[in-house]
């Protein structure tokens, strides 16, 4: 399992990379992609949608299951990554390089973990 030291993690296995105080990229962790298996489809929100803490903003389908993707922040969807919508399997090969949505106007940040705590969290969960 890989972690990226510069980003934050949620308990539902999303990562958050802050670009500034109110803007962030959100993606799925390496642990999540490994658990889900080959990803085949992603259901994206639309630009301008509101997202809020621990609430699903989309879902992702693997050959095994469909899982929600929860938002780790309160904010507005500024951009969706069309490249990932077209090729969700990129999340399998490069989870931390494959952001799913960019959120702006962030007003609230959920309870997030740093890389070390997330690693411990996953070990406990496993």
């Amino acid at each position, binding site marked *: 399992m890989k972690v990226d030291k510069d980003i934050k993690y949620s308990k539902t296995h999303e990562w958050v990379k802050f670009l500034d105080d109110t803007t962030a990229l959100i993606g799925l962790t390496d642990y999540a992609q490994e658990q889900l298996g080959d990803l085949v489809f992603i259901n994206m929100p639309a630009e301008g949608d509101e997202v809020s803490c621990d609430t699903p903003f989309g*879902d992702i*389908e693997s*050959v*095994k*299951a*469909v899982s*929600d993707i929860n938002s780790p922040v309160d904010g507005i969807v500024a951009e969706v990554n069309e490249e990932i919508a077209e090729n969700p399997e990129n999340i399998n090969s490069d989870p931390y390089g494959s952001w799913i949505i960019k959120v702006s106007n962030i007003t609230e940040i959920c309870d997030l973990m740093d890389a070390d705590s997330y690693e411990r969290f996953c070990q406990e969960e496993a």
Partner: protein
Amino acid sequence: MGSYIPNSKAEQERMLDFLGLASLDDLYDEIPDKVKLKDGLNIPEGKSELEVRRRMETLAGKNTVFHTIFRGAGAYRHYIPAIVKAVASKEKFITAYTPYQPEISQGVLQSIFEFQTMICELTGMDVANASVYDGATACAEAISMCVDRKRDVVYVSATVHPDYLRTVKTYCYAAGRKLVVVPEKDGVTDIAFLKENLDEKSAAFLMQQPNFYGIIEDAETYFGVAREAGAKSIMCINPFYGAIGRTPRECGADIAVGEGQPLGISLGFGGPYLGFMACVQEMTRKLPGRIVGQTTDLEGKRAFVLTLQAREQHIRREKASSNICSNQGLCALTAACYMSTMGPSGIKEVANQCLSKAHYAAKLISSVPGYELVFDAEFFHEFVTKCPVSVNKLMAKLERQGILGGYPLGGPYEGCILWCFTEMNTKEEIDQLVAILKEGIQE
């Protein structure tokens, strides 16, 4: 009866012996004595095959079987080639329940795959599912495919079959969706109402082609309005009309649904019937129920699988937008047999016969004083006329001659009759009907 239970006393003994039990009752040891039935079941003794046959034939004799039918209104009498029933009643099809380990039943999956393929050809759509209960369910499920957080108001034309509308209402009520019935004007959907009301909250617009009154509506224009508002377009289509008219795809529909009963399924007192559903590629993942896909097995041979299973409600129950997990297997198989027996040209011919017989009948019936056509509009194989006498009395008179007359309409068209003509109706039958109408009735 009962002599066909395939385990003999000796076999039972052997099984008990193997289990180390003395009697069948020992199998129920775990069940508390007080809840066990002591005196056996209170049902009559079994009957012989002859007795059963007599009883069933007496019951069947109570049915009124019309030799001539001029009624449709959602259930259509068409000729069913003998081979269709022969194939569909093969025991491996007729006794099989929906396969729980689907891939082991390649034959069933292939039949569904063929059904889906033919439904796609008829509707012009990219993907079809394995079927749902009936046309009404298909309409309601199609609407569920279109609703999301931002768009939750659905529009259904008042010219859709009233039973379908009721089913859609039930679904919408239960799901907390807002349903707007688009009013009817001169027998068709009121386009002005659509233009005024569709907006960024509108999820879908559902119309029926031909509509409940048999009229061919201007679907293309409606769907253009829906598209402009960002709403999805759903067409509930008679499969025979699809074979000769513009397909749902050509009219710009996102989803095509309909009642599959006309495709080789007996009228059977209203069921079991068959709902078909097909959609454009982009909506595939919203399509409910089972979908069979074609693939290759480890040896590279053609094989069939249930696909998109990850979205089925039994896997993702709390998020499912549909509770359909099975399909109308035997009816879908029957329809597949029918369609492959008839072929595209056979289906077109049936459609053309329906069209021309209905137009022949309309010309004659409407020339009888008092039976004028109610709508001045293009129609397929059904049309509405006025009736100068009591509709009930007219129906009773026809019934005495073994004829099931048209469907007596209610509501705004109380006192009018919805007639239907298919390839089953001969010119002689139509002429006889017209003669009876001319005779009039003793009021």
